[in-house]
């Protein structure tokens, strides 16, 4: 049975209508019965549906939609997919710190993207430098917070922290520990007679002597003014008395040169030994009392706190 030309026109119009609907409608049209008999139409329809679905998937961010159709248009879509997937991978690499990634396949976007990566790299470089400077500054700040600026040794706060730790250690293990409290004699008159710079020089000289006499595990600090403290771990009061006497004698015989003057200073030293039940405050207080005892007994001497 031969078909009439009018039938062909009707079929072609139906085909156009169906394809237009496929492009325009949210829901793909059903294939009209008449078109199911047209050779190759169903395959064409399936390919167009797949292209439609792929474009929809990409437009909603699903880059993994698998396009199985072959040919020029599906190939172009897959080429776009490959570019977007590679861009995704490159972005991940940049996020992990690889700033060498460059895009060269997406026209104007490539230039903008590459500029962004370069800027990001520059910003990261600056940030890293800032971090290093900040770390360095923090170290300096920490050092400044712990150090007496005039003598360069521990200040009262950090000396107390160290002594607190040592107290915990000796409380746990029961080791001996002693504290020396030093105070320069007649310090006010040195300042008044020769000026504060001379007094500062005397403080630095005493610091040097303490550093020479101290062992590796000893620690010391300037508590304020002309007052210093030294902690001697693993040392009883007899051993500490020897150290204190050596300090006193060294200071007494050390010449402090200041401008054209040659000064001599002395120190009074009190010594206390850790006793069961001591706190940091009671240990320091007994050393302090012994130091005042030395002052009271004529200065330039070592006095020991009694051991109970």
């Amino acid at each position, binding site marked *: 049975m031969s078909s009439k030309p009018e039938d062909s026109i009707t079929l072609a119009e139906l085909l156009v209508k169906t394809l237009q609907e496929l492009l325009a409608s949210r829901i793909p049209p059903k294939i009209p019965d008449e078109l199911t008999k047209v050779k190759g139409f169903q395959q064409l329809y399936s390919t167009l549906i797949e292209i439609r679905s792929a474009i929809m998937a990409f437009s909603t961010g699903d880059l993994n939609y698998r396009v199985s159709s*072959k*040919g*020029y248009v*599906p*190939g*172009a879509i*897959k*080429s776009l997919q*490959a*570019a977007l*997937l*590679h861009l*995704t*991978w490159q972005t991940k*690499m940049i996020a*992990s710190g*690889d700033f*060498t990634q460059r895009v060269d*396949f997406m026209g104007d976007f490539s230039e903008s993207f590459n500029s962004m990566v370069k800027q990001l790299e520059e910003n990261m470089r600056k940030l890293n430098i800032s971090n290093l400077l900040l770390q360095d500054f923090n170290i300096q700040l920490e050092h400044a917070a712990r150090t007496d600026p005039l003598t360069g040794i521990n200040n009262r706060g950090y000396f107390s922290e160290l002594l607190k730790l040592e107290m915990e250690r000796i409380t746990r293990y029961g080791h001996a520990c002693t504290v020396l409290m030093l105070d320069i004699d007649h310090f006010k008159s040195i300042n008044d007679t020769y000026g504060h710079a001379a007094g500062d020089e005397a403080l630095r000289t005493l610091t040097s002597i303490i550093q020479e006499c101290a062992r590796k595990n000893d620690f010391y600090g300037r508590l304020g003014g002309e007052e210093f403290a030294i902690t001697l771990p693993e040392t009883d009061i007899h051993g500490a008395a020897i150290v204190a006497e050596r300090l006193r004698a060294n200071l007494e015989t050390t010449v402090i040169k200041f401008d054209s003057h040659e000064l001599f200073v002395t120190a009074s030293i009190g010594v206390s030994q850790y006793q069961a039940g001591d706190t940091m405050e009671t240990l320091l207080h007994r050393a302090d009392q012994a130091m005042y005892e030395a002052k009271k007994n004529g200065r330039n001497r070592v006095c020991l706190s009694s051991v109970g």
Partner: protein
Amino acid sequence: MQFAFRDVIERHMGTEATDKIFYEAGALAGKEFYTHMLTPTTDLNEFVRQLQKVLKDLGIGILRVEKADMEKGEIIVTVSEDLDCSGLPEIDYEICIYDEGFISALLECFSGIKFTVKEVDCWCTGDRTCRFNAKAVV
């Protein structure tokens, strides 16, 4: 020339054996390529970077990574302007068997793990870029 050889070998040996020969030839080339053209590295980014540059400089193709999960042993790469097939007439099957072997050897040399590589899209089937799925052999 490659495909003239291929046609003749296929006529004598059959498609399966020919595919195997081309895959192994590609793998041999990939191994030598890695040894002589790339600087060994354990960093995937660095490996890809080197490979992209050398392949592009030599006009072999433009390599792009779509996915790379070395822990799962899954990698998807595309090669545009592939020297193997670019410009060939369209056929109805993927043809870059030599490249499959080539890429598998490169990945094995880099990672020390054996990979099987399959081309899923090809210039010869109408695609603009060749796409290869690589999976580690467990």
